[in-house]
């Protein structure tokens, strides 16, 4: 069969029914086209067929016969929309970018031919881009880029400034992700997963296909989708066929699939013995909290201040029916990370017995350390590579089953082995934010001050424990007495994982609505109340800004009638400042340029740019004289991209390294002049300590908790269709107090993305389980609904940069604090619009209508 790809004639004998994306990627090596959902939903695989956009995952190869196909590579970096994407930073991880760019190129050309060089406005762009999903939520940049390209603002090839150093690789499809590593001689692996919610495994007969056992020590499976073993074969379809032939003896055991059921007396136990409990996976990222077990419930791990006082005040207030006592039970749904690049690993052992892992990870050094320990290798003999990472959000923080299985199979087979999750696996067993049920009690005294607070939170993290939520109520609203108790309720469902502000998002959903309710009871402006209760001076600055916003000033007061109603809501957030104290950056002069290296990775936050900008500024070099190499464990001390700590750890290290290099080279007349003569010069810079040190006396695993809390205030404006129960977030303001902003555009992009994910959490995202079987029903991106471009409100982000002078570098992380209060601000806005206080996430239309029923 003949076709034309990017202007080049191609002949192929591929299977006619195989999706075209396979031919493009595996056959022709055009890996700019991504396969992310295989379902036609996400658009990452979009190519032009005779000029018209189509999803190549749904296109049988046969349909390309005689056609002309243009992939992102075929646009050659020369299309104005590619420059526009780079200039407006219309990306984070970049995994969705090629698909967006291809669609946008067709749209822009057509728009300009039909309308001339005019701005099409948001609505037209939203319609055109409806077939694309960006899990990072880079939609604001995408709107701006497409509109500007239509208006002819990027026709001049002289490149406009690009806030992100790797932008060009991302808009051209050249950025290589783990899934794009396709060694010619390799095997493809797939995982055989449990069909039972609870079962003991007997004999396994895999025939002569290479396989590795992935069972836990007790050979007991505790959820549907749990890995049993992995098999490898020459192609993925052969591996799938081999997997289907594996015979496994299961002895099913009784299972619990709902938290209410798990809590009931006499229900089947997920973990029957102490040893089993001890081996339970953990969903948190901290050191893990203690807790006693009672059946399937673990806890409480209790925190607080003057707990007895808190309890006494609350019960007395309840007895006397005090109007200043706010109590409610809030719930949140399990939210799945579902980064657009699935979990993936390509593993290889070399002649010397070194292990090479290409892995989609947020933590190259942690993965390397864990791999070294697992396979008994010295650290320098494990080589982890993550050049580009298509998102993580917390789900890719450790050595995972994809890497373990690939490495084991590679060892058995003596060839590289590639293992990539499909979207169903990604949505079933690759990480999710535990659901919660949170009982909140909040009491104000006669003068309207916070008198007592109690939070009991039950985490629903499937088989995993350690889902602290209530704990985070220790960080807010002064020192009033409080009792905070966290429980885990285990069920036979997939385990949770840390997800962007773990614990913070569900806590604030409850607490910030509670505070809002209190403001209503006290008849006080919700911002003013927070300002009174919250002693944090940095957030005071944000409250003042928020209170002055036109949308806040003009908000409706009093009950509304009519079908469409508008509301405005506010929520505040507080989040610990974490860092890797030992993070290092190495600089080396090579061929007249400075090469910067760090053992970090970029999951879309823009770590390369942080280093490049800091080094270039310190040395007075033009951007193109600094090259950043990250995504390897190169012997330097790194920082994982978890806990919002990469930038604050690596920025000062880069600064320190640059100062050292300047000292080494001397700067007369300028560093730039001295580079040519300094080939090979090398320095290593370190993070340096903060003034006054850290809250943690010694770093744990290289990590410390710094002094001070990052703060955020979100103000959301919603429009509610009270007849259909639909909510649209029309506008969102975010005030962020995280100190110095290393790169304004990249930081704003993070905050915008955080808002989009918060909107998903608030309105759409809900993992559904079949309670009878424990099967995850929402295992595709049609049914698990993440926000699309049309769900994006107009977003304004304000950075308050003072107050972090004690921190080396002056700035702390913001990726999490920018996310955790979003849903609560929307909940409060819905209450403002409708009078109905939403207690359960997501605020689905049916729930809203039910709640509003008189």
């Amino acid at each position, binding site marked *: 069969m003949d076709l034309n790809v990017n202007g080049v004639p191609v002949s192929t004998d591929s299977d006619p029914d195989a999706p075209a994306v396979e031919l493009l990627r595996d056959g022709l090596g055009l890996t700019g086209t991504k396969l992310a959902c295989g379902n036609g939903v996400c658009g990452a695989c979009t190519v032009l067929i005779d000029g018209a956009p189509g999803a190549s995952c749904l296109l049988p190869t046969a349909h390309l016969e005689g056609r002309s196909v243009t992939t992102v590579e075929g646009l050659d970096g020369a299309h104005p929309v590619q420059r526009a994407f780079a200039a407006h930073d219309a990306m984070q991880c970049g995994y969705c970018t090629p698909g967006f760019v291809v669609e946008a190129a067709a749209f822009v050309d057509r728009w300009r031919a039909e309308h001339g060089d005019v701005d099409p406005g948001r609505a037209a762009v*939203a319609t055109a881009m409806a077939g694309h999903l960006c899990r990072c939520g880079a939609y604001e940049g995408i709107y701006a880029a497409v509109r500007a390209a239509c208006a002819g603002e990027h026709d001049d090839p002289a490149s406009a400034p690009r806030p992100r150093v790797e932008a060009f690789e991302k808009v051209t499809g050249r950025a290589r992700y783990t899934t794009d590593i396709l060694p010619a001689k390799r095997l493809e692996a797939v995982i055989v997963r449990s069909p039972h919610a609870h079962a003991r495994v007997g004999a396994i007969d895999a025939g002569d296909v290479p396989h590795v056992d992935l069972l836990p020590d007790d050979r007991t499976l505790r959820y549907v989708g749990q890995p049993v073993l992995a098999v490898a074969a020459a192609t993925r379809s052969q591996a799938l066929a081999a997997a289907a032939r594996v015979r496994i003896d299961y002895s099913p055991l009784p299972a619990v699939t709902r938290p209410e059921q798990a809590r009931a007396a006499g229900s089947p136990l997920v973990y029957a013995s102490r040893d089993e409990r001890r081996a339970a996976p953990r969903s948190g990222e901290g050191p893990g909290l203690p807790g006693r077990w009672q059946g399937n419930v673990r806890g409480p791990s209790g925190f607080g201040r003057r707990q007895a006082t808190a309890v006494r005040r609350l019960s007395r207030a309840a007895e006397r029916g005090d109007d200043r006592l706010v109590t409610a039970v809030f719930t949140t749904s399990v939210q799945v990370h579902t980064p657009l690049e699935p979990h993936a690993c390509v593993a290889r052992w070399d002649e010397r017995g070194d292990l090479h892992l290409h892995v989609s990870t947020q933590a190259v050094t942690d993965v390397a350390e864990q791999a070294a320990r697992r396979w008994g290798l010295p650290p320098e003999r494990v080589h982890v590579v993550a050049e580009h990472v298509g998102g993580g959000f917390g789900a890719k923080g450790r050595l995972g089953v994809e890497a373990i299985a690939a490495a084991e199979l590679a060892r058995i087979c003596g060839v590289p082995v590639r293992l990539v999750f499909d979207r169903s696996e990604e949505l079933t067993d690759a990480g999710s934010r535990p659901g919660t049920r949170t009982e909140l009690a909040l009491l104000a005294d006669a003068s309207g001050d916070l008198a007592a607070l109690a939070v009991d939170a039950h985490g629903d993290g499937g088989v995993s424990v350690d889902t602290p939520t209530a704990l985070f109520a220790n960080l807010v609203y002064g020192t009033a007495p409080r009792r905070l108790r966290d429980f885990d309720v285990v069920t036979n469902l997939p385990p949770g994982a840390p997800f962007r502000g773990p614990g913070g998002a569900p806590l604030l959903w409850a607490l910030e609505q509670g505070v809002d309710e209190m403001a209503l009871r006290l008849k006080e402006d919700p911002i003013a109340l927070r300002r009174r209760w919250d002693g944090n001076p940095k957030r005071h600055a944000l409250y003042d800004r928020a209170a002055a916003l036109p949308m806040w000033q003009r908000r409706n007061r009093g009950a509304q009638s009519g079908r469409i109603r508008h509301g405005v809501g506010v929520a505040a957030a507080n989040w610990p400042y974490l860092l890797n104290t030992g993070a290092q950056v190495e600089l080396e002069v090579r061929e007249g340029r400075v090469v910067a290296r760090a053992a970090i990775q970029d999951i879309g936050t823009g770590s390369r740019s942080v280093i490049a900008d800091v080094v270039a500024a310190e040395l007075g070099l033009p951007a193109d004289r600094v090259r950043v190499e990250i995504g390897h464990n190169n012997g330097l001390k790194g920082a994982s991209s978890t806990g919002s700590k990469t930038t604050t750890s690596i920025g000062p290290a880069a600064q320190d390294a640059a100062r050292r290099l300047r000292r080494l080279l001397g700067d007369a007349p300028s560093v730039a002049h001295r580079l040519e003569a300094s080939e090979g010069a090398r320095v290593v810079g370190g993070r340096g300590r903060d003034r006054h040190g850290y809250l943690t006396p010694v770093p744990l695993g290289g990590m410390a908790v710094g002094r001070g809390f990052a703060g955020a205030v979100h103000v959301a404006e919603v429009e509610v269709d009270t007849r259909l129960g639909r909510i649209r977030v029309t506008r969102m303001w975010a005030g962020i107090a995280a100190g110095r902003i290393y790169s304004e555009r990249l930081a704003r992009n993070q905050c915008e993305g955080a808002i989009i994910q918060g909107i998903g959490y608030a309105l759409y995202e809900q993992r559904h389980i079949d309670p009878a079987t424990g099967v995850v029903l929402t295992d595709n991106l049609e049914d698990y609904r993440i926000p699309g471009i049309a769900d994006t409100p107009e977003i304004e982000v304000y950075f308050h940069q003072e107050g972090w002078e004690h921190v080396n570098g002056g700035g702390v992380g913001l990726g999490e604090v920018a996310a955790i209060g979003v849903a609560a601000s929307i909940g409060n806005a819905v209450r403002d619009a409708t009078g109905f206080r939403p207690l359960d996430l997501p605020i689905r239309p049916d729930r809203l209508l039910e709640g509003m029923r008189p």
Partner: protein
Amino acid sequence: MDFLSPSTWEEALAAKSAHPDAVPIMGGTDVMVELNFGRRRPPALLDLTRIPQLRDHGPDDGYLRLGAGVPYTTIIERLRDRSPALAQAARAVASPQIRNRGSVGGNLGGASPAGDAHPPLLAVDALVELASVRGVRRVAAREFYHGPRRTARRDDELISAVLLPEPAGPQSFSKIGTRNAMVIAVASFSLALDAQARTVGTGIGSAGPTPLRAIEAEKFLASEFDWDGAASPSPATVTRFGELVASAARPIDDVRGSAHYRRHALSVMARRAVSWAVTDYRKEIARCA
């Protein structure tokens, strides 16, 4: 798996007759999803994309004949006036990539109760043309849907076209999704008025095992509607119509929405459709006057 790619209609019919279990594939936007996830491994695929007449459209004895393979994009861009409700439905389908390839024939072939083409086809009383080596027959869309994904099409038949009557009054389609775009319907509704016959047609999507009609609602509105002056129906009439539409649905709870919400959404869409119809009808009267 065999891949049959006939280049003429006769060959296609012969192939379908010889391999009744071959799965036809047009745009592939349903078929490929199933293949990709290994949900289905049919013995053969029968590719229909090389048959030119499946993409034709034009007048046919008082009808608009729409080849089964005409993609949604073409309906939106070229056939808006001749098939208003269907074009609105086409616009509501997914995304540009899907609309460029997906077809009404494919929608009918899969017969998902959530398919957007079905409610308009029911409402306007369209015909579905089925062909086999045994001959050609036309089945009213209203007789086409038999059960969950089961239709009047026999195993050796292919869908060749749909035939849409000339619009004779206001038509509309609306759809409730779960997000602001790119969604399969939670519920959808189509309304078509025939000013000459003074009849009302309805179609309900995603709220039952098959696409449905609300026959009681049709009769009720036909008798209540002011066919001469298009006076606004009373609020009670509109509400009653909404209730009748909702009660014709047979929805279930699933990941997209609850049965209760679906009924509610249908009544809202039905009421709104009446008010649009009144406005359109008045405009039409004004234009003719």
